[in-house]
């Protein structure tokens, strides 16, 4: 499989070439355009029951589309995300990655997709009760609203919840208020996330919540 992420960083878009017999799994709605010779199938995300639970409690799309090349020639497909910003990829090779809601775009064969209990703290912070964990040997594509930065957490680290995109599961999340109830409300920092452990964290330079907070008082 050949891939190319073009128009980085603000309008990053994934251009893929599927060889005969290859397939790519993508989030519902991620397909911008493709060769008319590719076949598409829709499946539940991680099985029916977790899929439904996720839809009710996690707030993300229930379904996953599988695009496969059943022809004898290479075929192209273009995948993108709903927000403007950067896209990156990781080759798992046995590693694992957890994605925050909205970050997931696509994965290749050999990747295991699981929904895991994220806890009530996560739910209070508006991040849903479940989190998406990807493992195996495939490749994962995910995106951000704004630019992407990576941080190697050594011991502990604090991030604003709305800016967290992905993290390795070796990192433990503790969602809480930044400085007591009053401090949190007045500082505008809201929920922060105290990360503990060692591993890589992906951050986005803008947050959708920030945009919503900016727009909300302007609506009349």
């Amino acid at each position, binding site marked *: 499989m050949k891939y190319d992420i073009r128009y980085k960083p603000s*309008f990053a*878009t994934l251009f893929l070439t599927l060889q005969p017999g290859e397939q790519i799994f993508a989030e519902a709605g991620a397909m911008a355009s493709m060769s*008319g010779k590719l076949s598409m199938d829709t499946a539940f995300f991680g099985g029916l029951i977790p899929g439904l639970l996720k839809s009710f409690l996690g707030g993300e799309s229930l*379904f996953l589309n599988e695009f496969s090349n059943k022809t004898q020639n290479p075929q192209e497909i273009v995948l*993108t995300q*709903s927000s403007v910003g950067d896209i990156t990829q990781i080759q798992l090779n046995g590693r694992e990655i957890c994605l925050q809601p909205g970050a997931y775009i696509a994965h290749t064969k050999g990747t295991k997709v699981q929904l895991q209990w994220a806890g009530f703290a996560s739910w209070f912070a508006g991040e849903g009760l479940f989190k998406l964990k990807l493992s195996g040997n495939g490749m994962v594509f995910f995106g951000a609203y704004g630019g992407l930065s990576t941080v190697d957490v050594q011991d502990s680290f604090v991030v604003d919840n709305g800016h967290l995109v992905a993290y390795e599961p070796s990192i433990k999340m503790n969602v809480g208020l930044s400085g007591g109830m009053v401090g949190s409300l007045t500082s505008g920092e809201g929920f922060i996330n105290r990360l503990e452990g060692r591993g890589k964290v992906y951050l986005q330079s803008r947050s*959708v919540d920030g945009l919503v907070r900016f727009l909300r008082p302007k*609506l*009349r």
Partner: protein
Amino acid sequence: MKLELLHQPDSAIAKVHMDPQEELQAEAGAMVAMSSDINVSTTLRKGKGGGVLGGLKRMVAGESLFISVFRSGNSAAELYIAPKLMGDILPYTLSGTELVIQSTSYLASTPGVQVDLGFTGFKSFLSGESVFWLTANGSGLVILNAFGSIYEIDVDGDYVVDTGHIVAFERTLDYDITKVNKSWAGAFFSGEGFVCQFRGRGKVFCQTHNPGAFGRKIGGKLPPR
């Protein structure tokens, strides 16, 4: 007339250098700045779906009822026009050919180009959004805008584009609005509601981002009006 594109691709703006007594029509509200001796008039878009009734229909679809006509005086003038959303601008030269434009992607055109609301497209009952098509024919320049960057596909055979990602396409192509899944349930759940299936030869211009999807992502978090 000379066209200069600045700040591509994320914040593209078109700087139009006009000779004396030249004309350009543009989407109402697209003007950013201009020489003070440019004369501006406003008209209703003509053609099927034009006029007052068609205008009302477009307003329902969130489209502008009016187009602005800019005419330079006895000296050369400058006109800056820009779309509302972040993204790129693409100039397309028509020479007796026909171009179908997704109505929100139209920015401006020169007088030799007739822009009509050829047909009202369809309303997707899945996303609740309307897609309106404009047809441009004649000869001259059409200026298109997009949400995100614009990529060009030279179709030869079969090609599928999500309706939210279409900027414009050449009329030499045959097309069908269809669902990508064979089953209705699949079409409903796949999130890929309706797609445009192209056949034949010609160019399709696609935008990397779907304005409707971004709007729903942000709009879903805003309180109802």
